[in-house]
C-alpha cells in the first residue's frame, strides 16, 4: 500500500504526485499489487489504472485502518506522500494497527522516522556521530520555550515545530513578544506539541544534499543544492542552484561524509532522504539543520535537475533491490549506484501569491509560503537564472532589462527590500546595481554570496552595453555572447529600443539559434538517448528531431493559485493518449514538481520557459504536426494567438511531411472570441443565451450609472486581469466608489466590468467535449455548494447535481451544446452558470479549454476526458471514441477546496470571488451527505458530532438562520450567538446562549474558542468595517485553534447533513474501481442521459 500526500497545500504540492506516480509504476512493474490511498483527485497517481485499488478517500488513521483491514497489504510505503503520509504511518505504527494486520513498514521504519522528525532525538543522534547542530533546546510548553531562549541568550531565534510540513507554525523571532507569539503557534501546529528553539544562523550559507541508501547499505549522493538566499529563508522559498557552486572538494566531501553518516545513524534503511546544512561563510564551520527521511520537494527538484529518478529508485529499493542491481534509467548500461555528474546549472525560483492574501506580509521566513516554482537549466548560472526568471510568468522576460518598480524607490526603501527577504528581492538587487550600489555592499545587506552577486552584476554590465548599441550594429558574436548569458529577445529589444520580433528576425538572419543539450546524468561520459533537453547557445545541438508524426504539448508552467496540478494532469493525459494513438509527443514545461516534466511521460521533453520566444524556437526545430495549447491553463492559451500569427506568417510544414504545422483543437480565434467581452456578448445575443446584466465602465460615472441601472449588489472586476484578481461584490454606491478609488484604476484603457450579482444563486460548472464534426457531449454537470460569488475553484461541488430541477438542467445542456458549436470548439469547454431562486439560468463564463475540474469529473464518471479531448483534437470523432452520451453516475462525488489561510498571518478566511485555494479533495459515496462528509474529513475539517455551535449571520443571510439553527438543535448541538443573531433566534423561539463580541468586553467569543468551548462556527460576514477587524480576529482565532469554520449558508446546510449521516452510520471506504465494477454490472440506464446531437 502506498500513501499519497492528499490535497495540494503550500509545502506539499504536485511533487508528491510525481513521486507517488513513479512509485506506483515501479512497483507494478515489479509485479506487486498496489493499493493506493490519496484524497486528491487531481493527481495522475489516482488514475484508476495506475494502482490495482485506488482509494480517493479521507486519510485519517481510523479510515486508513479500515482499508488495511479490507485489503490486507503486506507492506506500507509511507515515504512517497510527504509529511501527510509519514505522520499517518507514525500514527498507524504507534497505535499497533500495522502490527495487528501484519503490515510491514518499508522505506523508513518507525524509529527512523521518529529520530529524524523528533527534534530532540535528532539532536541526540547528531551528537552521537559528532556533527554539530545549532545551539538549541526543545520546549513542550511556552514556559520551557522562554527558558531555552534565556539559555541561548540572544535574538533572533528560530522556532521549528516538530512533525510539521514546510515549517508550518515556525518562524524567526527578533524580540520577546514575537517569540511568544510564534512559540504558541508552533506548539499548536506540531503533532507532538513540541518546538525546537534554535540559535539563528542568519547569514550562513545553506546547502542541501539528496542522499539514497539501499538495504545493502550502499549510499550515494544524487545532487547537491546551494541556496542563493542565506539561512533564514525556508529552502522551499529560496532561490536554489544545483550543483553547489561555492564549495571546494574538501568542503563538499565533508558534507557528503556527514550526509552518509546521518542517513545511517537515523536508520533510514533504504530510499531517499534530504539533509540540510548551514555553512559559516567566514570559516566554513558546518552545522546540520535537519533531515527528511522521505522523498521531498527537493528530491523532485534533484530528480529533474539530474535525470536520476529518486522516487522510482526509492520504490524499487523499498522492495529489496540494491542500487547496483538497477540500471541507470537514462544510460541503461551503467548501474544506478553512482552519483550523477551534471554539465549545466539548474536554478529554481519559487513563485508566491501574497497578493491574494491581503493583510499578510510578503516576507520570507522559515515557514514556507510559496505556491509553486519554476526551474531552468542552462550551461551557466546566468543562463539558467534568466530562464528561471522568465519561466515564472510574472511579467519579466528575464532578470533586468525592465522598468522594475524598485528603480523608483528611495534608498531606504530599497535597502529594506534588500535586507528583508521577500519575493521581489532579486528585482531590488537589480535596481540597486543599476543605481551603482557595489556588490560588496549588496552582500552586506542581503547575505547573498558574492559569487552570485558578481554574476548578476555582469548581467547589468551587459545590459549597459546593449543600451549603448542599436540593433543594427549588434554582430553575430555579440548575439552569441548576450544569448549565452540567458538574455531573451524581449530583453534585448528593451535594451536596444526595438521589438521582440525585430530581434528574432535579426538573430535568425545571423544564424544565431539555440542548441539543445541533453540531460544524461553523466555529463556526456556515456551514451544516453533519453530525450530530456534544454536550450543553450553553445555550438552543438543534440536534439536530433525525428520525422515522425508528432505533437507539441505546452504545459502550465509554475504552479500558482488557480493553475496547478489539474492542468498538469490534463497535459499528461494528452501525452499518454496521443502516444497510444501513434504520435510522438513532445512536452514543454518549466515546472519541476510535475509528472509532465518526468522524462518518461512523453517521447521528448524540453525543460524550457513557456514564452513565445522559447516556444517558437522549438516549433522551428521540431516542426510538429500539431501544437496543443488547451491543457496547460492560461499559460499556453495566452501564447495561442502569437503562435497562430507566426504560423500564418511563415506557414512551416511539419517534419512528418503531413502538412502544415497547426494548432490543434479550438482555434485561437474562438478562444479569443470567448475571452473578448464584446465579441462574446454578441455571440450570446445571437444564440439567445442569457447572462447577468452588466456593462463596461470606462470612468467612475459610467460605473455608478451602470450599477444604478442593474441594481445592487454588483460584481466588479478589472477587465485586464484573469482568475478573479481584484474581483469584489459591492452593495452600494459608496462601496463602489471606494473600490474604484482603492482597488483598481479605471480609465478608458483599462475599463472595469460591472455585472449584476445574483444573490443566493446556485452556481453550476459544466465540462463538455466537442469534436470537429460539431458533436457535443456533456462530461459532467456540477452543482456548487457555496452560492454564486464564491470563486468556483474555492467552492465545494457535487456531481451529479443535487437540487437542480430538470428544466434548468435541460437549459444548461442546450446552451452548452449551442455555444460549443457556435465557437467551433474542438476539445474541452468549461461553462459556468448561475441559477436564481426563481429558476432563471444565466451563463456566467465560458472557457474553450480544459478546466480545473477535468480530473475530478473524469474520476467521477469513469471516463478520461482529457484523453478523449486530445484524441478529438487529433481528428477522431466522439463516435469513434465511443463517448456519445453524458454519463450521470449513480454514486455522488463531492469536491472540496483546501485553503492555505494558516500560512498567511493576518489575512481573513472568508471565501470570495478571488480564488485562494491551493488544492482539492474528493469524497465519493452513494449518498450526498456521506460523500460530502468524506470530502470534509479529507479537507481537514473535523466536523464535530456534538457540542456547541457558534452562529453569527449577517443580515443578508439571516433569513436562513432559523433553518440552520433548528438543524443543529435537532442534532443535539447547543447554540451560542452574539447579540444580533441571538435576538433573531430568540424571536423564533430557538434557545441560544449569548456571548459578547470581541469588542464588547470579556469573556467574549474568542475566549470561548481558546477554552475549547466552541466546536463549530458558522459565520457569514457583514463585510463592514467592524467585521473586518472584530470578525476577522475571531475567524483567525478559530483557525489557530483548529475549530472548523463555515462561512456560507449552503456550506452550513451541507455540513448539517454530513454530521447527521456521520452520526447514523460510520464511513465505508470504497475503492474507486469498485464504484465502476458495480455499475458495469448494473448497467444503469439513466433517463437523464442526453443523446448526442447529430452532426451538422
Amino acid at each position, binding site marked *: 500500500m502506498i500513501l499519497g500526500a492528499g490535497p495540494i497545500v503550500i509545502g506539499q504540492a504536485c511533487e508528491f504526485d510525481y513521486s507517488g506516480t513513479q512509485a506506483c509504476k515501479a512497483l507494478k512493474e515489479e509485479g506487486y499489487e498496489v493499493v493506493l490511498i490519496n484524497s486528491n483527485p487531481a493527481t495522475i497517481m489516482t488514475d484508476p489504472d495506475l494502482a490495482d485499488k485506488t482509494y480517493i478517500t479521507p486519510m485519517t488513521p481510523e479510515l486508513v485502518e479500515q482499508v488495511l483491514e479490507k485489503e490486507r497489504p503486506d507492506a506500507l510505503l509511507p515515504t512517497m506522500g510527504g509529511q501527510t503520509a509519514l505522520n499517518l504511518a507514525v500514527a498507524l505504527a504507534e497505535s499497533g494497527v500495522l502490527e495487528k494486520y501484519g503490515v510491514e513498514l518499508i522505506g523508513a521504519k518507525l524509529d527512523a522516522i521518529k529520530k529524524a522528525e523528533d527534534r530532540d532525538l535528532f539532536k541526540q543522534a547528531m551528537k552521537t556521530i559528532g556533527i554539530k547542530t545549532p545551539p538549541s533546546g526543545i520546549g513542550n510548553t511556552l514556559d520551557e520555550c522562554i527558558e531555552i531562549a534565556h539559555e541561548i541568550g540572544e535574538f533572533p531565534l528560530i522556532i521549528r515545530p516538530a512533525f510539521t510540513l514546510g515549517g508550518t507554525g515556525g518562524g524567526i523571532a527578533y524580540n520577546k513578544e514575537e517569540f511568544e507569539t510564534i512559540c504558541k503557534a508552533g506548539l499548536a501546529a506540531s503533532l507532538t506539541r513540541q518546538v525546537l528553539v534554535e540559535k539563528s544562523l542568519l547569514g550562513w550559507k545553506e546547502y542541501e544534499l539528496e542522499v539514497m541508501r539501499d538495504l545493502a547499505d550502499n549510499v550515494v549522493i544524487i545532487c547537491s543544492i546551494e541556496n542563493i538566499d542565506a539561512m533564514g529563508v525556508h529552502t522551499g522559498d529560496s532561490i536554489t542552484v544545483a550543483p553547489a557552486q561555492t*564549495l*571546494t572538494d574538501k568542503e563538499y566531501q565533508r558534507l557528503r561524509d556527514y550526509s552518509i553518516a546521518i542517513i545511517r545513524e537515523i536508520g533510514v534503511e533504504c530510499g531517499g532522504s534530504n539533509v540540510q546544512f548551514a555553512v559559516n561563510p567566514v570559516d566554513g564551520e558546518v552545522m546540520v539543520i535537519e533531515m527528511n527521511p522521505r522523498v521531498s520537494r527537493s528530491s523532485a527538484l534533484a530528480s529533474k535537475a539530474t535525470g536520476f529518478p529518486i522516487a522510482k529508485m526509492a520504490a524499487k529499493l523499498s522492495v529489496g533491490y540494491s542500487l547496483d542491481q538497477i540500471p541507470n534509467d537514462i544510460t541503461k548500461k551503467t548501474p544506478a549506484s553512482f552519483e550523477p555528474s551534471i554539465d549545466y546549472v539548474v536554478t529554481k525560483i519559487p513563485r508566491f501569491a501574497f497578493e491574494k492574501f491581503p493583510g499578510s506580509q510578503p516576507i520570507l521566513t522559515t515557514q514556507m509560503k510559496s505556491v509553486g516554482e519554476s526551474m531552468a537549466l542552462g550551461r551557466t548560472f546566468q543562463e539558467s537564472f534568466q530562464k528561471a526568471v522568465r519561466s515564472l510568468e510574472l511579467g519579466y522576460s528575464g532578470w533586468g532589462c525592465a522598468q522594475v518598480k524598485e528603480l523608483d524607490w528611495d534608498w531606504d526603501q530599497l535597502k529594506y527590500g534588500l535586507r528583508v527577504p521577500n519575493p521581489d528581492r532579486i528585482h531590488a538587487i537589480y535596481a540597486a546595481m543599476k543605481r551603482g550600489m557595489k556588490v560588496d555592499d549588496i552582500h552586506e545587506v542581503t547575505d547573498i554570496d558574492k559569487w552570485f552577486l558578481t554574476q548578476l552584476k555582469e548581467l547589468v554590465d*551587459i545590459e549597459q552595453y546593449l543600451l549603448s548599441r542599436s540593433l543594427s550594429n549588434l554582430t553575430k558574436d555579440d548575439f552569441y555572447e548576450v544569448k549565452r548569458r540567458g538574455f531573451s529577445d524581449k530583453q534585448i529589444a528593451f535594451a536596444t529600443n526595438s521589438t521582440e520580433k525585430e530581434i528574432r528576425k535579426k538573430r535568425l538572419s545571423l544564424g544565431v539559434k539555440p542548441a539543445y543539450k541533453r540531460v544524461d546524468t553523466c555529463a556526456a561520459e556515456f551514451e544516453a538517448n533519453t530525450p530530456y533537453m534544454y536550450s543553450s547557445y553553445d555550438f552543438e545541438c543534440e536534439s536530433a528531431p525525428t520525422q515522425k508524426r508528432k505533437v507539441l504539448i505546452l504545459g502550465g508552467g509554475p504552479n500558482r493559485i488557480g493553475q496547478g496540478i489539474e492542468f498538469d494532469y490534463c497535459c499528461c493525459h494528452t501525452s499518454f493518449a496521443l502516444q497510444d494513438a501513434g504520435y510522438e509527443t513532445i512536452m514543454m514545461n518549466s515546472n519541476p514538481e510535475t509528472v509532465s516534466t518526468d522524462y518518461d511521460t512523453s517521447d521528448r521533453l524540453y525543460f524550457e520557459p513557456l514564452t513565445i520566444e522559447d516556444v517558437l524556437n522549438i516549433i522551428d526545430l521540431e516542426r510538429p504536426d500539431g501544437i496543443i495549447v488547451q491543457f496547460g491553463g492560461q499559460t499556453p492559451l495566452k501564447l495561442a494567438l502569437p503562435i497562430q500569427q507566426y504560423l500564418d506568417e511563415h506557414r512551416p510544414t511539419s517534419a512528418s511531411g503531413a502538412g502544415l504545422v497547426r494548432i490543434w483543437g479550438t482555434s485561437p480565434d474562438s478562444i479569443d472570441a470567448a475571452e473578448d467581452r464584446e465579441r462574446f456578448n454578441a455571440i450570446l445575443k445571437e444564440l439567445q443565451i442569457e447572462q447577468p446584466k452588466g456593462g463596461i465602465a470606462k470612468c467612475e460615472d459610467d460605473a455608478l450609472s451602470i450599477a444604478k441601472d442593474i441594481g445592487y449588489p454588483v460584481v466588479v472586476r478589472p477587465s485586464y486581469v484573469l482568475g478573479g484578481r481584484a474581483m469584489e461584490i459591492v452593495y452600494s454606491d459608496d462601496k463602489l466608489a471606494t473600490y474604484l478609488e482603492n482597488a483598481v484604476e479605471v480609465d478608458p484603457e483599462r475599463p472595469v466590468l460591472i455585472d449584476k450579482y445574483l444573490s443566493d444563486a446556485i452556481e453550476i460548472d459544466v465540462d463538455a467535449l466537442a469534436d470537429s464534426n460539431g458533436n457535443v457531449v456533456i462530461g459532467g454537470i456540477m452543482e456548487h455548494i457555496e452560492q454564486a460569488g464564491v470563486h468556483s475553484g474555492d467552492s465545494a461541488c457535487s456531481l451529479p447535481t443535487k437540487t437542480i430541477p430538470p428544466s434548468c438542467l435541460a437549459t444548461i445542456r442546450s446552451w452548452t451544446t449551442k455555444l460549443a458549436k457556435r465557437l467551433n470548439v474542438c476539445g474541452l469547454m468549461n461553462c459556468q452558470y448561475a441559477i436564481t431562486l426563481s429558476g432563471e439560468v444565466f451563463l456566467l463564463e465560458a472557457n474553450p479549454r480544459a478546466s480545473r475540474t477535468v480530473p475530478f469529473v473524469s474520476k467521477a464518471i469513469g471516463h478520461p476526458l482529457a484523453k478523449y479531448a486530445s484524441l478529438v483534437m487529433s481528428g477522431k470523432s466522439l463516435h469513434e471514441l465511443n463517448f456519445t452520451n453524458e454519463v450521470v453516475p449513480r454514486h455522488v462525488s463531492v469536491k472540496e477546496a483546501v485553503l492555505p489561510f494558516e500560512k498567511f498571518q493576518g489575512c481573513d478566511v472568508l471565501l470570495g470571488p478571488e480564488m485562494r485555494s491551493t488544492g482539492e479533495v474528493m469524497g465519493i459515496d452513494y449518498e450526498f451527505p456521506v460523500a460530502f462528509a468524506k470530502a470534509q474529513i479529507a479537507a481537514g475539517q473535523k466536523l464535530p458530532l456534538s457540542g456547541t455551535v457558534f452562529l453569527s449571520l449577517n443580515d443578508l443571510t439571516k433569513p436562513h438562520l432559523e433553518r440552520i439553527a433548528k438543524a443543529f438543535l435537532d442534532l443535539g448541538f447547543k447554540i451560542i450567538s452574539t447579540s444580533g443573531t441571538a435576538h433573531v433566534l430568540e424571536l423564533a423561539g430557538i434557545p441560544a446562549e449569548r456571548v459578547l463580541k470581541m469588542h464588547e468586553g470579556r469573556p467574549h467569543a474568542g475566549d470561548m474558542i481558546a477554552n475549547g468551548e466552541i466546536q463549530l462556527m458558522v459565520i457569514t460576514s457583514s463585510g463592514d468595517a467592524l467585521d473586518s477587524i472584530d470578525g476577522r480576529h475571531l475567524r483567525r482565532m478559530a483557525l489557530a485553534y483548529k475549530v472548523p469554520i463555515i462561512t456560507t449558508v449552503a456550506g452550513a446546510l451541507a455540513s448539517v447533513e454530513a454530521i447527521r449521516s456521520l452520526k447514523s452510520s460510520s464511513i465505508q471506504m470504497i475503492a474507486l474501481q469498485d464504484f465502476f465494477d458495480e455499475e458495469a454490472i448494473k448497467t444503469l440506464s439513466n433517463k437523464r442521459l442526453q443523446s448526442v446531437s447529430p452532426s451538422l
Partner: protein
Amino acid sequence: MATVNYAVRCFVTNPSAKNPSKPRPFVVRCSVPLSPSHDASTAVQERPWKVADARLVLADGSIWRAKSFGAPGTQVGEVVFNTSLTGYQEILTDPSYAGQFVLMTNPHIGNTGVNFDDEESRQCFLAGLVIRSLSISTSNWRCTKTLGDYLAERNIMGIYDVDTRAITRRLRQDGSLIGVLSTEQSKADEELLEMSRSWDIVGVDLISGVSCNAPYEWINKTNSDWEFNSGGRGGDKFHVVAYDFGIKQNILRRLASYGCKITVVPSTWPASETLKMNPDGVLFSNGPGDPSAVPYAVETVKEIIGKVPVFGICMGHQLLGQALGGKTFKMKFGHHGGNHPVRNLRNSRVEISSQNHNYAVDPASLPEGVEVTHINLNDGSCAGLAFPSLKLMSLQYHPEASPGPHDSDTSFEEFIQLMKQAKQAA
C-alpha cells in the same frame, strides 16, 4: 545520430570533405572572431567581455575558438575530460595529468579560487585546462588567489567559453584525441593540426619528468579540519617506502594519518636500495602516461613483490599487473571523474570512487593466483587486484580521494593489516 548531422553541417563549408584521407580543418565558431569588429563607431561602450584569442585544434580536424587565460603560448597534449563536479585544484596539481589537457565537464570552474591546502603536488604538470566558463569572481574563505593568476604563475595554459560538452561527446565517441592549444595568431590552423598529428603519448615516459629527484621523509597527516576517519588506528607504526611515479600528496597524508612513517623515493630508485631500508611495506604510486613506457619501473616492482607487502595505486596497479605477467592496454577514453561505482568483491559493497586513468590491466592476461578484488561497475573493467600469497594489493582508482569521495579510504587500513600480518608472521 545528432553528431553525424552536425558534423555534416561543419563540413558543408569545407570543400575538402570529399577527400577524407586529408581532411582540412573546419572551424567551430564558439565566440567572437579574432579580427576586430567592423563597427566603426568608437563612441560605443567597449564590449564587457573578452574577445576570443585562442584556438584548440584537435587531431580530428576540428578547431575550437576560445578565450585564453593563464599562460599564453602553444602546447600540444592529449585531451581528456573529467566529470568531477568539485576539485579542480587537486586535478591541476595531480601529476598523473602530465602531458594532458584536462577538460572539465562542470561548466563553472574557478569559483572557489585556489588555496594552500588543496595542492596535490608541488607544481602543475598538466598541459592545459579547457573549461566552459571561467569564474569572474571567487568565493571561499580559504581562497588566496584566482585560478587565472595561479595558472599564469605556473605557466599553464587555459581556455574558456568553448562548448566543452561537444568536445566531450567527440572524445566519448572517437576516443581520446591529441590537441594543440595556441594563443599565437601567427600560427596557421594547418600548422597546429600537423603538430597534433605528429605527437603521440603512447610509449612516452612521462614519469621521469614528474618524480622527485631524491628520497625524502613525509610526515604530514591529513589536516585535522579535514580528517574524516578518525577511528580504528592501531598503535603500531609501519615504515612505508613510497615510489613516486607522480604521487598525489593525499596518498602520503592518508598513510601518515594511519600511522605510517613514510620515505618517498624517486621512480628510478633501485629495488635493492629500497629493500635495504627494510620497509614494512612498499607503495607504488599513481603517475602519468603509459605503463609500458617505463620498463625499468616494472623491473623494480618485480624485484620487490613477494619480499614485502606492496600496495599499488593507479599507475602502481598497472605496473604490478605487468610485473605479474599481465598486459595493460589503452582504453578508449579512460576513466576520469569522481562518481564511478566500484564493487569491492570481497564484501560486495559498492564504493563511489575517484578515477583517473587511460590504461587498464587486462585481467584475463594475469596468471593464476591473482584475484580480481574490485570491478568498475560502469564497464566491468578491472579496478583492483590482490595476490594474497605475495602480500600484494592494488587499486586502479584513487582511495586517497582528493578530489572525490572517501568511500575507499578503508583500503589503506587493509594495507596496514597486510603489513601487520607480515610483521607478525616474520
